[in-house]
């Protein structure tokens, strides 16, 4: 594999786009954050633990994590009609599953923790930016968590592994085309809580690509940590 190959935006194969974060963007929420990978911008707000309606959905043994992901109509070139698409509904579910292992839901029986994720501007990696924003927002909200959750898309352009694909890279068609592997994991664990893949990848390549993802997650963790600590130092 040619590790020296350059990408159209000049990044190295394992270089992430510049990350931007801001905590507390929604004052009404218990916790909130903005997270961006380059031009992909996500905001997340957390409300909870709070009452879960209707009552029959309450679980006396554990709290419920309710995750809602959607894109603003003008976040994409072809306007997206308001209202959740099937894609958004699927991402809502997998994002919830990505975050849940890190949260001590047992501590809040009969309640709900609502996580709202919205994409302001899309340039691929929207679910991963969303999960990163949600993770910061959950911590900001004081929710007991085992760890922060880090997420990114790793992939392959023809035969070359890359991290954090842009939309342009997602549309790559030469050779084996583009493979997109979205992953998430609690920062200090080696277990993955999100695994979604589209493209062409040989089984024996999976190990290496996941290792690449784990390395990149460390960088994301540092950015998330710094964002949270900076909230407090604004005195």
């Amino acid at each position, binding site marked *: 594999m040619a590790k020296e190959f350059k990408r159209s935006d000049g990044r190295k194969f394992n270089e992430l786009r510049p990350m931007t974060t801001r905590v507390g963007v929604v004052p009404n929420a218990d*916790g909130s954050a903005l997270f961006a990978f380059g031009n992909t911008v996500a905001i997340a707000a957390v*409300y909870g633990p709070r009452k879960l309606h209707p009552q029959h959905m309450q679980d*006396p043994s554990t709290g419920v994590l309710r995750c809602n992901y959607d894109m603003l109509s003008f976040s994409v070139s072809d306007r997206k009609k308001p209202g959740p698409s099937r894609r958004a509904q699927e991402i809502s579910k997998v994002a919830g599953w990505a975050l849940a292992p890190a949260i001590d839901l047992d501590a809040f029986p009969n309640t*709900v923790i609502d996580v709202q994720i919205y994409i302001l501007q899309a340039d691929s990696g929207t679910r991963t930016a969303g999960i990163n924003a949600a993770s910061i927002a959950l*911590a900001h909200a*004081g929710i007991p968590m085992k*760890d922060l959750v880090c997420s990114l898309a790793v992939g392959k352009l023809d035969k070359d592994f890359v991290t954090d694909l842009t939309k342009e890279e997602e549309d790559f068609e030469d050779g084996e085309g583009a493979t997109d592997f979205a992953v998430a994991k*609690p920062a200090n664990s080696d277990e993955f809580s999100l695994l979604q893949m589209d493209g062409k990848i040989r089984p024996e390549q999976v190990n290496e690509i996941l290792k690449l993802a784990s390395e990149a997650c460390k960088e994301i963790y540092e950015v998330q940590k710094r964002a949270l*600590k900076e909230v407090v130092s604004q005195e």
Partner: protein
Amino acid sequence: MRNEINEAHEAVELDSDASVKRRVIVPGEVIITGEDYLPGEGTRRQGENIIATRFGLAEEAGKVVRVISIFGAFVPRRNNVIIGRVVDITYNGWLVDIDAAPQAFLPIEEVPRFINKNEMDQFLAIGDILSAKIWSVKSRGVDLALKGKGLGKLEGGFVFHIIPSRVPRIIGREGSMINLIKDKTRCNITVGQNGWIWIRGPEIEDEIKARKAIEFVADKVFVNGLTEKVEQWFEENE
């Protein structure tokens, strides 16, 4: 389980002998390593490490390591004094919104004097505000009690909200901060652990000043020298 107010009082001033100086910590981070430390609130033990399980200020007192929350929703605990708003009247009590996940209920037996079941709304009507103590926290909800000085319906004045985890520094060590604010503004103030605060004073100017002073304190995360800062604030806002 120790009363949360007392816990917070001890935490108000920086203890220079502590092995863990007050510092901001995120979930999953190692606070300190050592077999003889005990994992307190907001932490867990993993091997030799004490690890944070929530975002906040990590600190240690007497070998107990804990993380004090600085943001987040209110989680009701027994003995908390709270301020709530009546949302409904049932045949045997009042349903009260305490701005938390579980529903709260004040049984009619809690009222010190006799209340006719037909006249319940004359004691507490929908939309009325009361201060009460949390008597029990069960899976189906929270039971309230009026056993305690000054608890009951709050008349006049107004209520407003601050982040619940800031309540301990609003009260201060043995009430020093809230008493300072009460003195300077001549106001009656009741502080609910759920972040709701009631103020009633002699003049509008005093009541508004008391709210602003409380919001000034609540905004700060670190509490070093907070009393001096507040006294200065009052001087500047004569």
